[in-house]
Each structure stands twice: as structure tokens, then as C-alpha cells.
């Protein structure tokens, strides 16, 4: 109950942001964080939970952005319909990318996603008649009430909220456990009857849908896109947010996204260093706390708990209980 109240309070505070923000730029930044989070929340199931190191999700972001720009702009579709189409296109491309690459070992998969993002960049440049080539495309915004900076922020906030809820539902249930099993011990996962490839593909397609949606929102926020908008660096940025935040957590990567998006805006020298800063951060995290910064809190909590009581390690079977549990059927 207390958790629900806290959640509601946060939701209200976030929804009211356009009214308490002191300038338009803050609203823009908050919207950008939301857009990134829509993608990262989905990618988190792939990277943080199932352990598939995709460094090329920027390709899916670009596809969503171009689909939205072309459908809503060139073809005059209603923007919200084009937004849905972007999500579908992202999911479809995720399927096409995942089918051949998710069976490959880790480094091969990472390289396949890198190659995918480079191919998307190459094609968006080459197919000038559709994408505007190097010149790029102007992107229409959303209709009222989403046609102001505050309105777009609400739209993004709503979608980000829904995506967060969906990923939280997945992560906190059997699916989340299965994905972690795939990440940490494929042998144990298959022994438990988990279909590793299908599970990986499912979350990958889901991450494609959220990346496609994020692409459309991103395009509308930027209002003009070129192939340069979707440099490989952004794909790396998404990935780093998750690794730094901590694998197997939702809050960690969320904080990672907020801090890493906002930090360069607040601390100007960091913006100049750009990727160097993200790379250095990633290196430090990998070498010092490979489970991510979010894990530090957990370790501290465990330490305190251990100090409080001496932990027992004595195994003492309760046979009648075991017999009763074995006699139970599937899901009571």
C-alpha cells in the first residue's frame, strides 16, 4: 500500500513536470530521457536479463524514426497511426535480426548487432529517394494535445510508463527468472525445460517494438533527422546505461539513463569528452563492480543484515513436508 502511494506520488510529480520546470529546455531534456528510457527499458530485458549484448539497437531506433517520418510526413498518415507502425516495424526488424544472430555465441552476436546498425546507417544514406539521404527529413509532430513541448512530454511519459509496467511485469515473474537463467547458466536453463532461443527471440522482438516506438518519438522530438542523428555512439550509450545501472534490475538502468543523459548537460566538460567518459565509466564498472552500481546498494544491505544475525548453514530436511509437496499437482 505504501509502495502504491509512493508510486502515485512520483507519477503525479512527473506528470506535473511541465508546470514546475523553470525553462523549456528542462522539459526537452525530460522528454529525451523518457524517449531513451522507452528503448532502454525494452533493451534491458535483452541485455540486463537474458544477457545478450546488443550494441546496435540504434539501428532499430533509426528504423522507427524513419518509418514515422516517412509515413507521417511523406505519406500523410495520422501521426499516432504512424507511431504504431514504427513500433511494428521495429519489432519486425528485431525478428529479422534476431532469427539468424541469436543462435550465435556472445561476441558474434554483439558484432552482428554492430553490423546491423552500420547497415541501417548505410541504407538510410543510400536510399535517398525515401530517406532524403544525407540531407535528411523534416519530421511532423503529433496532433493536439501532444503538439506542445509539454504535450509531447506527456505522450512520452505515458508510453514510458506503460513500457516500464510491461517490463516490470515480465521481470518480476517466471519470465524474468527464466531470462536470468539463460544469462547465467544456459545449461541449467535447458535442464529446466526453458526454450532458450525462443525466449531470447521473444524479448528481442519486444525490444525491437520499444526501440521502434522510441525512434518515432525521438524523431518527433528532434523534428529533423539525418543519418548522422543515429551514430553508432548512441547505441553504445544505451548499452552503457544498462551495464552501469546493473544487470537484472530495472531501477538501476533507469537511474543510469537519467544520470547519463542529464550529466553531460549539467557538467559541460563531460559533453566534450562524450564517449570517452562513457567508455571510462564502463571500464571502471566492469573492473571494479561488474554487477553494476545498483548492486552496491544490495551488497551494503546484505552486509548489514549479516551483521545483525549469525547465519545458519545447517540443512535439516522436513520429510513429511517434502512428501506433501511432491504429492501436489501442477498449479493448485
Amino acid at each position, binding site marked *: 500500500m505504501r509502495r502504491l502511494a509512493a508510486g502515485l506520488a512520483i507519477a503525479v510529480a512527473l506528470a506535473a513536470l511541465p508546470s514546475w520546470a523553470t525553462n523549456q529546455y528542462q522539459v526537452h531534456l525530460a522528454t529525451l530521457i523518457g524517449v531513451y528510457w522507452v528503448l532502454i527499458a525494452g533493451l534491458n530485458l535483452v541485455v540486463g536479463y537474458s544477457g545478450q549484448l546488443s550494441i546496435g539497437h540504434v539501428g532499430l531506433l533509426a528504423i522507427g524514426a524513419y518509418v514515422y517520418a516517412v509515413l507521417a510526413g511523406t505519406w500523410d498518415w495520422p501521426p499516432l497511426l504512424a507511431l504504431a507502425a514504427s513500433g511494428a516495424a521495429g519489432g519486425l526488424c528485431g525478428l529479422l535480426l534476431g532469427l539468424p544472430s541469436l543462435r550465435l555465441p556472445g561476441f558474434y552476436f554483439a*558484432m552482428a548487432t554492430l*553490423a546491423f546498425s552500420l547497415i541501417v546507417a548505410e541504407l538510410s*544514406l*543510400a536510399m535517398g529517394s525515401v530517406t532524403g539521404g544525407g540531407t535528411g527529413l523534416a519530421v511532423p509532430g503529433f496532433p493536439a494535445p501532444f503538439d506542445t513541448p509539454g504535450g509531447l512530454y506527456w505522450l512520452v511519459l505515458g508510453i514510458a510508463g506503460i513500457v516500464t509496467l510491461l517490463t516490470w511485469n515480465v521481470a518480476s515473474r517466471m519470465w524474468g527468472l527464466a531470462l536470468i537463467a539463460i544469462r547465467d547458466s544456459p545449461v541449467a536453463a535447458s535442464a529446466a525445460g526453458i526454450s532458450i532461443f525462443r525466449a531470447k527471440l521473444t524479448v528481442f522482438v519486444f525490444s525491437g517494438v520499444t526501440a521502434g516506438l522510441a525512434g518515432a518519438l525521438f524523431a518527433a522530438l528532434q523534428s529533423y533527422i539525418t543519418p548522422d542523428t543515429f551514430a553508432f555512439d548512441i547505441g553504445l550509450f544505451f548499452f552503457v546505461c544498462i551495464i552501469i545501472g546493473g544487470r537484472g534490475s530495472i531501477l538501476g538502468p533507469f537511474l543510469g539513463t537519467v544520470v547519463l543523459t542529464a550529466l553531460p548537460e549539467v557538467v559541460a566538460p563531460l559533453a*566534450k569528452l562524450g564517449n*570517452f567518459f562513457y567508455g571510462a565509466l564502463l571500464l571502471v564498472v*566492469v*573492473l571494479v563492480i561488474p554487477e553494476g552500481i545498483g548492486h552496491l546498494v544490495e551488497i551494503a544491505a546484505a552486509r548489514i543484515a549479516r551483521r545483525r544475525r549469525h547465519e545458519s548453514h545447517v540443512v535439516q530436511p522436513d520429510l513429511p513436508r517434502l512428501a506433501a509437496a511432491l504429492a501436489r499437482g501442477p498449479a493448485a
Partner: protein
Amino acid sequence: MLSVIVSGLAVGAVYVITALIYNLMYSTSKVLSVTTGHICMLGGVFGAWFTTVLGWPVLPALLGAVAIGTLFGVVTELVAVRRVLARSDEHLWLLSTLALATMTQQAVGLWWGTEPRRFPRVIPQDFSHGAADQKFWLPIGVMVVAALGLELFYRRTMWGKLFQATSEDAFAARARGISTDRVRMMSYAISGALGGLGGFAAGQLTFAYFALGLTLTLNGFIAIAVGGLGSSVGALVGGLALGLLSAFATYLFGGEFQQTIAVGLLMLVLLIRPEGLFGARGVRAV
């Protein structure tokens, strides 16, 4: 047509050199380092810096580029590989080498600039030689020397045999008193030197460009994946095939779909022979 073939071979030679470095590092550490292409990039950038900015003659500049490459190889081993191998998580080396590669690329971008810069002539030659231009033959020459040299090194020298022993069974090698840490360090140093040399030799072809590293990391990887991880012949065949394919694709369809076609080749080979053309089938252990 001749110029298409020669430029394809030359680009392929750069991929072969990158692929050989992948193999060399992999043999002693079982790590595929994301920094592989960045070693060559550093060779090119520093070669250009030594010659055009500092005004060094060719030979000292070449030695300087090799030294920088060697240093970077050693740093890669110390920072991104050694500490991570002590832990068992197989994903960590991917993250640590990716981090180091990103830092290197961005640092070079900030210092050297993000535009490709010209690499000077290594041997006096004017620009009217077409297919005989040194920018094609230098990387091809280095590729031949590197491939032969590595083969001799593996077969004839004590260090080469230590590499092979470590590659086949690191536990057994350690049991026989071989310091696998030193062997690994040595292989990364040699890899760095080779990358520095290759990057220098290919400078006129690739230009001194900060983003070259990632391209080479990817295409060198495609070469080993096509040819088969751990095989020198595979690296040669995979790299040259990829170079020729790109050259002909550019000749026929223009340069716009180069990466798409390269990845198409990779997918095709992986579908038919997942272990690569000359690779050994891995044995799965439970």
C-alpha cells in the same frame, strides 16, 4: 578491371592483418578483443602524426608507429584482459575491451580530429601508377610478410611453441610450468607491433582516420568468422575474399552498399558452415 582486383586485394590485406591479430590474441587468451581494429588505426594515425606533424623521416616514424601499437597491445592486455580473465564471466572481456576501444577512439577523435587526414608517401613515387601504386602494394606486402612470419614464428621459435601449447590447453601448459600470463602478454605485444606496422603500411589506403578502428574490428571479425577462428589460412582466405567482394561490389553497384554486402557474405557462410571455412568444430562440454 586490374585496378579493381588490386584495390580489392589491398583492402583485403588490411582485413587479413586484422584477422591475424584476432587469431594471435585469441590463441593465448581466448578473448576476441574489440580493440583489434583500433591497434591498426593507431598505427596509421601516429604514423601520419610522426611524419606530417613532427616531420620525422619514414623509418623512425615506422618504428614509432610499431612502438605505439606494441604499447597499446600491452595496455589492452593489462587493463582489459588480465584482470577480467581472473573472473569466470565470459561476457566481461567483451565489455572491458569495448570500453577500452571506445575510449581510444574518442581520445584520438578529440586529439587528432574526426576528419580523415592524408598519409604521406612512404616511398618516393608519383601518383600516376594506377594499380602499381604503393598504397596497394604496401599492405599486401606486409600481409605476406606477416602471414609467413607468424607461421615461421609458431613452428620454429620457442615462444611460438609456447603460444601453441597455451592455445591448446592452458591448464596443461600451466601445469608444466609455463607462465601463461607472460605468454599472453607477449602475444598481445606482438599483436600490437603487427597492428602498428599494418596500420602504417595501409595508411595511404585508409587515411589516418579515428573511426577506422571500429570498421576494421568488424571487417576483420567477418574475415575470421568466414575463414574460421584460429586458422591463418582462414584469415587469409576470409580477408581477401571480403576485400575482393567489396571492391567488385563497389565497381558494379557503387560504394553505397559495402557493409551490407560484407555482412551478407558473413551470414551466408555462417548459415552453411557455422565454424567458418577452415575452422575446427568446437566440442561442447557439460
